[in-house]
């Protein structure tokens, strides 16, 4: 009877394995074990997706307690889609963990590092799977707390203030979420999402419910780093060990956006929330600002990881822009870009791990001449960068096309202008990286030992880069599934 516990496997496996590394304490064991657990989680997620595609949503009641009394999991196509993405990318990123921690994490902390990694994965998977609002908060805290540890795990002392800042912001966000959940509970008397969705329409006009919804959305926006609540992100990504940046950029913000979709479109009801509470206009404006500001800020960075981090702020803007069009085409565009962006940023941050492996720095000038010395790593940066710009035959193009098409169909011309401006800025900041890689002579002193990174780092980076090309050509899994999810969500009309 494998199918029965399939829905909880992506959460339970990493959750149970994480404490083991505290006992074993051998980094190699922890690394191999984490990869094995990641593989199990990914396989379970893939199996879940197949099941959902065949038989429709899967339900699981913890301890046999039926909802709304017990905690229920309900996995529909949206959940399965995001879960496959999150578990898949985090698994590939974990391959790079072994080599990645060698340079960036001190020996005694390495086993702990993998514990935190698995805990974070468990938290993120739980957020995707759960059908219970309070359970969602618990998983949010599990993933957040382990993230603070991960960010601070490296040798770079500057990571400590970055992590602390993230902790403050993250805690504020989590508290907002909790207040929101509390108010909703007070207003409706239930925490189960399906139940809440059923009861909400009659309670919707209460001020407490409104307040709860707004608290929840703002809290999620902090976790998703939506402009102007993004301040924790650039520092955290720039100072964290490279593997952590790749992991977080590809998964954490994506899951936050997933939660947003879940509560707004499934629980609150898109029409009511977006229009009655003016969420649509507010978030569209903020997302547009995120695209322009994030891209512009990325253009001015000298540190490659900060550059990518600001680019993430902009990409989150694109995703939210798509979602806030609130029709099927817009949702499809947003979800497609969510999927593709995880691949781009995963590949790019892993490439930067490879760059610093042999003692290279993470400033733009440190990329100089690496095109010849690290041809494969440089190729990953090229592919990831082109995908960020949205060049055809890369994954990025698909999302951008769908977004522009959705906007054009709605007659939202200014939105196309925003996308264009963002793309032009992206061209600028990616161009700076490519130029440094290929057409700048390396600094005269030092850098003699710089050669191609070990396979342990190259393979995961190349796999993600290849995924960028693959999903630029075969879009059935990305845009195709996103389209089905969007059709199921239906939009707000």
């Amino acid at each position, binding site marked *: 009877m494998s199918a029965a516990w399939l829905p909880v496997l992506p959460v339970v496996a990493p959750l149970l394995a994480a404490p083991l590394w505290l006992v074993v304490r051998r980094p190699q064991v922890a690394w191999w074990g984490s990869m094995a657990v990641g593989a199990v989680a990914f396989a379970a997620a893939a199996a879940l997706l197949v099941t959902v595609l065949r038989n429709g949503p899967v339900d699981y009641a913890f301890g046999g307690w039926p909802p709304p009394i017990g905690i229920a999991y309900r996995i529909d196509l949206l959940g399965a889609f995001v879960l496959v993405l999150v578990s898949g990318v985090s698994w590939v990123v974990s391959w790079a963990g072994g080599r990645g921690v060698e340079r960036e994490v001190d020996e005694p902390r390495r086993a702990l590092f993998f514990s935190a990694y698995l805990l974070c994965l468990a938290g993120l998977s739980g957020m995707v799977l759960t059908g219970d609002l309070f359970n969602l908060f618990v998983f949010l805290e599990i993933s957040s707390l382990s993230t603070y540890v991960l960010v601070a795990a490296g040798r770079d002392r500057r990571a400590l203030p970055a992590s602390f800042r993230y902790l403050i912001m993250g805690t504020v966000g989590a508290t907002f979420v909790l207040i929101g959940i509390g108010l909703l509970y007070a207003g409706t008397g239930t925490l189960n999402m399906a139940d809440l969705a059923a009861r909400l329409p009659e309670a919707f006009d209460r001020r407490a419910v409104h307040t709860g919804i707004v608290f929840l959305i703002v809290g999620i926006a902090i976790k998703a780093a939506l402009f102007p609540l993004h301040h924790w992100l650039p520092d955290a990504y720039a100072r964290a060990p490279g593997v952590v940046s790749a992991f977080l950029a590809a998964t954490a913000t994506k899951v936050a956006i997933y939660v947003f979709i879940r509560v707004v479109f499934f629980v609150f009801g898109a029409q009511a929330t977006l229009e009655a509470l003016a969420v649509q206009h507010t978030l569209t404006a903020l997302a547009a600002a995120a695209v322009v500001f994030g891209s512009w800020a990325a253009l001015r960075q000298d540190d490659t990881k900060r550059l990518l981090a600001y680019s993430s702020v902009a990409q989150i803007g694109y995703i939210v822009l798509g979602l806030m069009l609130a029709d099927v085409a817009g949702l499809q565009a947003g979800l497609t870009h969510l999927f593709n962006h995880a691949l781009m940023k995963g590949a790019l941050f892993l490439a930067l791990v490879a760059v610093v492996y042999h003692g290279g720095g993470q400033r733009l000038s440190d990329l100089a001449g690496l095109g010849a010395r690290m041809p494969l790593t440089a190729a990953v940066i090229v592919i990831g960068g082109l995908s960020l710009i949205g060049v055809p035959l890369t994954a990025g193009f698909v999302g951008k096309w769908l977004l522009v098409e959705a906007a054009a169909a709605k007659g939202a011309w200014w939105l*196309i202008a925003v996308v264009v401006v963002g793309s032009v800025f992206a061209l600028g900041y990616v161009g700076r990286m490519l130029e440094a890689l290929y*057409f700048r002579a390396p600094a005269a002193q030092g850098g003699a030992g710089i050669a191609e990174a070990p396979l342990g780092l190259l393979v995961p980076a190349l796999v993600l880069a290849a995924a960028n090309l693959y999903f630029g050509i075969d*879009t059935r899994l990305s845009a195709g599934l996103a389209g089905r999810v969007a059709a199921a969500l239906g939009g707000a009309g």
Partner: protein
Amino acid sequence: MSASFDPAWLWLAPAVPLAGALLTPLAARRPALRDAWALVSALGLFVCVAWLAGAWWRAGAPVLRSEGPEWWAGVVLAVHVEPLSMLFASVASLLWVVTTVYSIGYMRANREAHQGRYYFCFALALAATMLVAFAANLVTLFVAYELLTLATYPLVAHKGDERARQGARTYLAILLASSMGLFLPAIVWTHVLAGGTEFVSGGLLAGRLSPAVAAALLSMFVLGVGKAAVMPVHRWLPAAMVAPTPVSALLHAVAVVKAGVFTLCKIVFYIFGPAELAALGAQEAALLLAGFTVVAASLVALRQVEFKRLLAYSTVSQLGYVVMAALLLAPLSRLGAVLHIAAHAFGKITLFFAAGAVYTALHKTRVDELAGVGRRMPWTMAAFTVGALSMIGLPPTAGFVSKWFILAGAMDWQSVFVGTVLVLSTALNAGYFLPIVCRAFFREGDGRGFEEAPWPMVAAITATAALTVGVFAAAGPLIDLARMSVEVSP
């Protein structure tokens, strides 16, 4: 009795140079093998296109398409063949062979570094060009168009010094910004309006446009297709002149820029439909802009002293002819536009080859240093003269043929504007090309004796000059092909 033609074979045209590109790194460390492979790739593509053209012609030159896999809902990658695409593909593949011979001479004589990367990108650019030529819809064309920009960027930045980097930056920034900013939105708009982006005889958008929408969309296309270098989106072309001369010759006189005007022709012929545009009168603004480009670029060229920059501005002006002639919409001028794509290619590549030969043999890059060069490099400068005559539009060169039809179209539709532009720019062309020829042949220079460039370069120059004259002498088949392309989209 007519043989059939399977359009699926068209995929072979981009596939051959792609294979050539992908195998280049294997030979990168052995110069002889690498050069031989470059030549084999070019010949392979030429044979492939010649075979396709022959089979297609024998089958009665039909318009046929072959669909690739669906990319995502409603968006398909597809190729098709029609007279205009066959003409563009033939010209580009033929000139690639000549350019490869020239490249081998040039790159070796100038001891250029990174030759593996050079030939790799070159072949990749040709693969993209072939896909541009045979693209059956705007999406496929856009994919190839962007690929062409990216493949040529490393070629422009080839030297790697600050000047080359700066030029390449301008090149990439303008081309990608215009295509992402205007071309792509215009394509998506077309997709939303028509539910697809296929090239359709008579115009995909025919009957779906109001004059205002048509004018806006056409302007987005004309400015968004930056490769057509309509002012003010032309700055990338002079910037690209930092590239090695064979790159300027094939890519920035033939493949890249022709991909731009070719794209605009396709859009006018098959997306809007000439009859529809004429009825709407939506082309006026774009036509004025193209005419302005022709004259303004010539005026700028008049003031250039750097040889390649002068040629670049001349190209901007000549591209303006094609755009202007296509937008005039008269059948005869559209015929001239199609012909000019080919005619300008032969003439301009000759001029660039000559500039590169002078640089290689004498290390001269300015036109005011050319006194007496005609005596030291008689083959090169004779070929240059042929190319210059073609630019001005004098017989016995290809430029005369195309200009004839453009002018005929202008008279046919009584367009005083186009006629005036043509006369003015002919005078200007003569004004900046003839002094160079005179200086080279009739002035005393500093050096003496015969100092031609390496023989592969001289052979290539002679070949393209011969082609320029040959097109004039045997213009029949070319005119037939061009006429068909006008008939396919009335």
